[in-house]
């Protein structure tokens, strides 16, 4: 009797039943309404306005110019905002792909090395986490000094001590710059991947490997047939958030070049630094907002593709 009543509960009845859940999420929901949803709607509206230092006082009352900002960002060859935007998009794509794969790969290798029994394992694991606690702005500053042509650690190591190169390359100008921003980012973020993957490795039952040993599988086969598929939930999350955070990377680049005031060069500029410069140095807030909206759309598409791909992999099992 009671059960049948429960099943027929109306929406209102179910809301009353879970009253407690609504109390628990209320503060967060309020914060998200006022500090996420409201600003994002204003941001999208801003992308249709002629908003610069003259009209900023009017803010949302600034002249409505429809898709002109988008035209300036995407098509108009004469708009100042388009200077360097192609390079920024290219660099962001290269940077995101290499950093995401790089953090995953380095994290995976170290996690496999740590997933054995040996003396002092907890200490080694903790020491490996060290780069992850160094703040990103410090990472940018520190590597900015390590890449210096004279007396920078990288050139000292490569040229003076190991003699791998004959002349000292300059890392902070020209095409080398892209590596000068990729490597510090991988250095800063791989420990987190390692931690997650190591936790995943420890949940894989030994029987699977023993069965593979009996079948005569080598280490390479075992990795791709057992380890990698079993770690699926871990690398799904790591790639998802890697994609998002690396595309929106800002601190490391802004601190490394000219220390916040300078231009990172055509191989060091990323989307975020580009938009930031356009918004706060050229005072083109409207076009900045339009570029952000376009970036957001691309991000939503990419995240959806990644979810779809993951679902397909899940179903193939």
């Amino acid at each position, binding site marked *: 009797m009671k059960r049948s009543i429960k099943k027929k509960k109306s929406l209102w009845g179910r809301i009353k039943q879970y009253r407690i859940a609504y109390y628990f999420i209320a503060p967060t929901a309020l*914060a998200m309404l006022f*500090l996420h949803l409201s600003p994002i709607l204003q941001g999208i509206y801003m992308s249709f306005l002629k908003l610069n230092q003259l009209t900023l006082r009017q803010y949302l009352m600034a002249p409505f110019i429809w898709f002109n900002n988008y035209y300036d960002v995407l098509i108009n060859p004469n708009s100042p905002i388009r200077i360097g935007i192609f390079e920024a998009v290219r660099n962001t794509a290269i940077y995101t792909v290499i950093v995401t794969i790089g953090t995953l790969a380095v994290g995976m290798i170290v996690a496999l090395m740590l997933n054995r029994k040996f003396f002092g394992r907890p200490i080694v694991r903790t020491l490996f986490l060290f780069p992850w*606690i160094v703040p990103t702005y410090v990472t940018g500053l520190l590597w900015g000094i390590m890449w210096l042509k004279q007396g920078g650690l990288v050139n000292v190591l490569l040229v003076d001590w190991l003699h791998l190169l004959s002349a000292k390359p300059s890392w902070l100008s020209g095409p080398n710059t892209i590596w000068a921003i990729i490597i510090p980012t991988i250095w800063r973020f791989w420990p987190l991947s390692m931690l997650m993957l190591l936790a995943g490795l420890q949940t894989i039952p030994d029987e699977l490997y023993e069965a593979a040993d009996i079948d005569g599988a080598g280490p390479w086969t075992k990795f791709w047939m057992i380890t990698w598929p079993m770690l699926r939930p871990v690398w799904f999350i790591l790639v998802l*958030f890697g994609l998002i955070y690396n595309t929106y990377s800002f601190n490391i680049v802004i601190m490394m070049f000219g*220390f916040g005031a300078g231009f990172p060069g055509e191989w060091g500029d990323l989307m975020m630094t580009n938009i930031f410069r356009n918004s706060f140095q050229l005072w083109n807030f409207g076009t900045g907002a339009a570029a952000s909206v376009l970036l*957001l759309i691309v991000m939503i598409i990419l995240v959806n593709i990644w979810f779809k791909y993951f679902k397909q992999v899940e179903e193939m099992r």
Partner: protein
Amino acid sequence: MPYYAKKRIIDIIISVIMLIFLAITLLPVGWMVFSSLKSSTDIAIGRVGLSRSLEGKVEVHWDNYVDMWKNVNFGLYLKNSIIICGTTMLLAMVFSTLAAYALSRFRFPGSDLFSNAILATQMIPAIMYLIPIYIMFVKFTLMSGIPVKGTYWGITLIYSAFFIPFSIWILRGFFASIPNELEESARIDGCSAIQVFWYIALPLAIPGIIATGIYIFLTAWDELMFAWVLTNADTMTIPVGIRLFVGNYQNRFDLMMAAAVVATLPVVVLFFLLQRHIVRGLTAGAVKG
């Protein structure tokens, strides 16, 4: 060669590779500390080692730290960063624990919408929020007379709101990894939902909550863009202070590195005090999905 001997040799080789890798990983941090003890001329001319005085003694410039502290007003920035990040951590821990618990235990109408909204907030570039929030702050002050921009609570509010969604994401996974049976039997014994949460779920979730708290603290400690726009000279945090300093002293790399070391030290201490919880708390959710 017998099987176990071969295995042992492979083990040693892997250990050696691992230690080399560890050295490479820690080298930049060592370089940071080392550079902070050099003289500014040594860095400028690109000398690798420490210079020697006329009597042949190695000069270690501890005075860089004193100089930096005097030049940068570092004490104020440190105090501001600790107040802002600490308050943010506490606020975000409380509210994200509540929301994560509700999401992992109840399938209430709207729970899917709420969890999708949480993921959606992560996809929005922070720069889109910057101007609207700045102007909201200014307008609020114009209307109510209460100052927001440049106060501790203004920036704390923004940080809390921004770090709560990701904290919920971590904590929800942690709650999902705690078996539900204990809570169910407590319900049958007549505990109210609040009692179950307070006496049973919460104590079990402490490692996850601590790990999330540290994650929030590290992220807040690291935040540059919003602090830049929303703080003033009295409430400036360390990254903004360092950025200003770097702009004024372009080639004093020694002082810069001293500042970098001091900015890193508090989070290092915090991390090593609580590292056991971090490893358990951050990874429990990731593995269980």
